[in-house]
Structure formats: structure tokens, C-alpha cells
């Protein structure tokens, strides 16, 4: 229901002939009611047009031209940039990395956030302090997280390996394998975002009438069953919301993998953890300064996000519906 907006008023005609509140007959009031909504939303759209829509369109224009930062604009080339990108295996590597990183960071993150939220959704001492403690990673900057975790996950002298070795495991060369680098990066992302999502879920959980749980409990439903049968279905819109937000964030992942490898845009010697966003930066701002191709990748990224968000939307909606029925 969160995303459905009821359309008001008739589709045709200047105004509703049967006004629900006939007292509003003053001309000024009518104008106010008719145009104020537009005035209220106008600032957003005006500013967005200049600093959001125009650059997006301009990126599309650039993607159809041969253009480098050092050599300038060299004319229209149609879809050449796109075909070059799509036939380059490098592009598919970074697509794979981006999706892989997204999945292995988002899935545990949201599950853990749900768990934390259900723990927080209890009567307890020092409630505010505990909630703040959970949210605190979110107030640190990505740059700081990258710097600090880069050292925690240093191969030979890092804390993570020290911990592994002190429980008898082998040290991991974090940046040398796909799985290990993904794990480390997912850890950084999850560290920063789990608490935030947990609080969003908590807010939604608080809205569920407690009587539902109490009667379910009286009917003998276990805690796990109550969680899956009551909590999850009822906070479905919120889950959908966090999934979409995480998708958008995950597809744009940039700073963490960059700082994880000490600012190297290639993300590992075989591009093991280079994301699409890093590939855009590498293409546009280093090497050949290829603005045209960078713009083409940008647009592809944008389209992927749109499609992926849509799929998410449908999947989450369906699965949560399934739970309720």
C-alpha cells in the first residue's frame, strides 16, 4: 500500500462537480487548493531538473559521441561506445563483481538487520543507548570506514588475520582472491548499514499491534513462527523499501572497494573487486579519459539499476505475499 497512490478527482473536467466540502467556495480558496500542491512540489522538480535531469540527459548525449577529456569532442558516433563496452569482457567482469558484491553484502545485511530489529523490539533497560549503539556505524564516513577497515583487513599485519590466526586458522590474503575481497568489502558495507536498516525495520515493527503477537502466542505459535507469520508480512512495504535502497547503493558501490585497495581503481590485480562505478571512473578519468565510453557505461549502469529495482520490487512483493497467504 505504500506505493499506491489513490488518484483523486475525475480524469476530465476542470474541477470536481460534487465537492465534498461545499463550504470551500471562495475563489481564493479554490485557487489555493488547486495550485498550492504544485507550488509545494515545484521547488523539488525545478532543482532536480537543473542538477539531476539535465546532467542525466547530457550523459546520454555524451555517450553517443567520441569525446575525451584531453582531446575534446570529436563528433557523433552513434552506438559505437555501447558496442565497444558490451563486447569488452572487462565490462562483464565488473558487472559480475557488482552483482556478486551486492548479493553477498545485502542479503546478510538485511537478515541481520531484521534480527537486530526484533531484538530491539523488546522492553529493555537503556533502550535509547542500545539503539544508538547499533546506529553508530552509520554516522562514520565511508572514507573513514575505508581507511580503518583497509588496515583491519591488511594481509600480513591486519587485525582480521590476527584474529583468524589466534583461533588456529590460516591468514587470508584478502586482496588476492575474489571471495576474500568480496567478504571484506561486504563486511565494511554491512558494518556501516545494518544498524540503520535495523532501525527502519524497528520503526515498522513498532507499528504492528502487539495484540496480534499476544493472541498468536496464546495459540501456541513459536517466536520464530510469529516472526515469519506476523512480523515479516506486516512490514513488507518497509522491506521492499530497504531492498530498493540497498540495490541502488549496492549498484553504485565505489568508495569501499577503492579504499580497500589503497585507492587503486582497478580493484585487485585481476579486477577481482572492481565495480561498475570504479570502471566508469577508470574509463573516464584515467587511462584514455574516454568521456564518451564512460558515459555509455554510466547509462548502462543506470538502466541496470532500473531493471534490477523493478525485479526486486516484484520479487519481494510476491514472496512476502506468499508468506501471508
Amino acid at each position, binding site marked *: 500500500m505504500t506505493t499506491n497512490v489513490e488518484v483523486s478527482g475525475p480524469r476530465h473536467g476542470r474541477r470536481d462537480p460534487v465537492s465534498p466540502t461545499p463550504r470551500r467556495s471562495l475563489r481564493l480558496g479554490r485557487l489555493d487548493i488547486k495550485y498550492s500542491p504544485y507550488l509545494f512540489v515545484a521547488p523539488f522538480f525545478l532543482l532536480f531538473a537543473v542538477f539531476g535531469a539535465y546532467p542525466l540527459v547530457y550523459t546520454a548525449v555524451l555517450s553517443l559521441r567520441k569525446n575525451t577529456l584531453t582531446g575534446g569532442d570529436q563528433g557523433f558516433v552513434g552506438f559505437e561506445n555501447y558496442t565497444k563496452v558490451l563486447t569488452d569482457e572487462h565490462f562483464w567482469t565488473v558487472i559480475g563483481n557488482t552483482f556478486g558484491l551486492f548479493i553477498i553484502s545485502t542479503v546478510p545485511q538485511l537478515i541481520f538487520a531484521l534480527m537486530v530489529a526484533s531484538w530491539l523490539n523488546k522492553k529493555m533497560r537503556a533502550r535509547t543507548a542500545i539503539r544508538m549503539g547499533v546506529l553508530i556505524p552509520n554516522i562514520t564516513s565511508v572514507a573513514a570506514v575505508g581507511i580503518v577497515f583497509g588496515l583491519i583487513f591488511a594481509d600480513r599485519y591486519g587485525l582480521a588475520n590476527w584474529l583468524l590466526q589466534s583461533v588456529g586458522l590460516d591468514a587470508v590474503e584478502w586482496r588476492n582472491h575474489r571471495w576474500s575481497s568480496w567478504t571484506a568489502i561486504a563486511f565494511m558495507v554491512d558494518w556501516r548499514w545494518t544498524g540503520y536498516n535495523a532501525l527502519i525495520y524497528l520503526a515498522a515493527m513498532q507499528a504492528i499491534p502487539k495484540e496480534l503477537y499476544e493472541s498468536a502466542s496464546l495459540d501456541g505459535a513459536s517466536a520464530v513462527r510469529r516472526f515469519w507469520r506476523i512480523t515479516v508480512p506486516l512490514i513488507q512495504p518497509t522491506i521492499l523499501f530497504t531492498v530498493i535502497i540497498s540495490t541502488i547503493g549496492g549498484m553504485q558501490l565505489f568508495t569501499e572497494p577503492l579504499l580497500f585497495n589503497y585507492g587503486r581503481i582497478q580493484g585487485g590485480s585481476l579486477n577481482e573487486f572492481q565495480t561498475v562505478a570504479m570502471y566508469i571512473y577508470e574509463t573516464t*578519468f584515467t*587511462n584514455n579519459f574516454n568521456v564518451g565510453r564512460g558515459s555509455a557505461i554510466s547509462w548502462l549502469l543506470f538502466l541496470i539499476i532500473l531493471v534490477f529495482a523493478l525485479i526486486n520490487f516484484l520479487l519481494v512483493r510476491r514472496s512476502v505475499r506468499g508468506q501471508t497467504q
Partner: protein
Amino acid sequence: MSFTSRRVRSVAAAALTVGLALGMGACSAKKDNAGSDGSTGGPVTISLSYFGTPGFTQAVKDFEAANPNIKVDIKNEGQTKDFVPKLAQQLSAGSGASDVVMLEEGMLLQYLKDNKPFANLLDLGASSLESEYLPFKWKNAFTADGKKLVGLGTDVGPLAMCYRSDLFQQAGLPTDRDAVSKLWPTWDDYVKQGEVFKSKNLKATWLDSATSVMQPYIMQNSDTWFYDKSDKYIGDTNPVVKKAYDLGLDMASKGLTSKLARWSTDWDAAFKNAAFATVPCPPWYTGVIKERAGDAAKGKWDIATIPGGGGNWGGSYLAIPEQSKNKKAAFELIKFLTGKQGGIDAFKEAGPLPSSQSALADPQIAGATNDYFNNAPVGKIYVDAAKTLKPIYLGPKHQALWENAFEPAMQAAEQGKLTAQAGWDKAIKDSKALAEG
């Protein structure tokens, strides 16, 4: 409740108004000196963009003292990789670039090809300065047709070999720098000594990374690398590139390298933990080692000559963008910074070796010693090495080809993720694709 909300609201309104006003006011405090032009006769302010640590602070003060009509606004742009994209954007946009910009060698090479955004220093009076600079440095900043000079050289990076004398002692190798230099006249000798070192089973390895030998080996044995002189990609056919690659990976397979990625945190820490015994080092690298190895290693590092003799790593130029409105004053500044006094100031401040011949001859540089490196006569070692440097043609995208395509593939092979052959194939494929862009 309603009282509270009203109060809150009025405070909010006030805060909003004040905040926005403050914001807009504060935020419109613009850079004040963007377009002061020299014709008014008053003092001119020019801007200077640099990256890394060229040691310009004192030199700029000296320049301002000598030129009271010129003020210099110094801009620290961070690292090379931060500055490269920013400068490219400013140049393509036609505004925003500083009056004087520092160009690392790799950047200069790119801009020799796309040289439109830069002023010809010959038109500003540089032609009389030729004898001031090391010949190869002077020559390297000309466009292919030899008609346009894009930059003047600040520093050069002649190579030596830094080594840890404490590890040498434990391995039973000589520790005196002259005796150490005699251990390795050639790279084969260097590898042999590495195997001796390895046989002593110390915790340390011989060299930090297989990629460290590429630069010196190629520079010593060829006058080209990835490009021939007509800018055609020859990385796949240049025999010296393959030889250097094989030399590095051979050392890796013998267990002589630490397999560390240069400039990584682990590599930083390895200095402190004495994890390797030798590393090729240009003058600016002495600061790199000192920073990383820390006070505890003071006196344990020393400097010998490099196997094979010669080779240059790094070094920058100063150039003037065509968009500058104060080219004359800008030229005065780069003349000063790359000249004798500027070179000496920078050397004393941060350690880069100037390309100005008169600065190199000055006892403040030629006679300098470095107490961190066991009082090694760094001045003499590096000035001697600088005089033997010969030009190598690197070509427009050398830096990107090396850093972003070749080096990662070579590292992957060193770390065992690829076979030596597969690593080579990837290095060539990627660098070629990049060169043909």
C-alpha cells in the same frame, strides 16, 4: 503542545532563514584571485598546483621575496592520481586550471601529444635556458616535431639500490656500501646474491616485488618501452620488456621476492618489519623509506649503486596552461622553481634531486649526506647517477599502460594467480588494448 509547536516553528523559521542566508553568503565567498590580469600594474597573483611533496614551500617564499609584484597561491592537489583527472577536466573545460601546473613524467607524455592546452615555453623565453638543465630532461619535454616546449623539469629520479645492512650482516654479506655495490655489477649477479641471501633462511626476502626490477632493467637496456618513437605500440615485440618481465618472475619463482603490491599498507608495514633486504631507490624514495621504516630502522638502511648501472624513476615538470591569464609571471615562477635556488630549496625541504645542473653542482646538494641512511653521501651517489642518465622514449600513455595494465597482470603472476605465460599474455593484451584505446 500548541505553544511548544509554535515556538519550535518560529525558531525553525528563524534558523532556516539564517542558515540559508549564512549558507549563501558564506558559500559565495569565492576564490578571490581568479582573473587578476597583469596589465593593471598592481601585484599579480598566480596559482600553482602541485601534488605529492615537491618541496615548494620555501622556494615559493624565496620567489616572492625576489619578485614583490607577484604573489603565489599554492594549491596542494593531493596525489598524482587525484590531480590527473582534475587537470584533464579543467583543461578541457578551458577554465579552472592554475597558472602553473606540475606534471608528472607520465602526464607530460600524454600532453606532449595533446599539447593544445599548454603554452609553448619557447615563446615565453625558455630557449636561452637549455644549458641549465640535464640534457635528457630538457629534451623530454618537447613535442614530437621539436617545435614546442611544454614543460621545464623540476626533478629527476636516478636509481640506486637501497639495502638493509643489518639483514646483510645476518646473511654474511658485506655491509659496506662500496663492497655491496661490487656484489652486483649485473642483474645476474644480483639474482645470485639473492639466492645466497635466501639460503641463509632469514625471515626476510631479497626484494619487495618482482615489478621493482622492470623500471631499472628496461631503462638500462633500451631507449623505448611500450612505444616506438612513432607512438606505435611495441610492448609485445620489444625484447627488453619480455626480458625484464622474465627476470622479475624468475626471482619470484625462486622465492626471492616478498610478492607485495607496491604502495599498499602491507608494503608500508613490511619496511617496518624488515621484510625485505633491497629495493631500487631514486632520490625521492629515501623519504619513502624513512617514512615507512621509522626511527627504529635509522642507520640500518644504506645506499649502493644499482645493478646494471643507470635508470631513472620519476621526476616532474612544470607547465603553463594556455588558459592562464598571467603567462609572463607564471613563466618567471617556473624558471625560478626549476632553477638553481628553487632546486636547492626543494632538495633541502623534501629530497627530490633537481634537474638544474647548477643546483646539482652546488655543494649543498653534491655534498649532502643522509644520516638516516648511515650518513651515505646521497648527494654524490645521486648526482653521479644523474649525469649518466640517457633519455628513453616512453610515449603518450606510458604511465597508464604500466600502472593500470601491465603491473597488475605481472603482480597476478607473481602472486601465483596466473602462470608466468598467462600473466605475460594478459599484460600484453591489456596494455595493447589501452594503447589503442
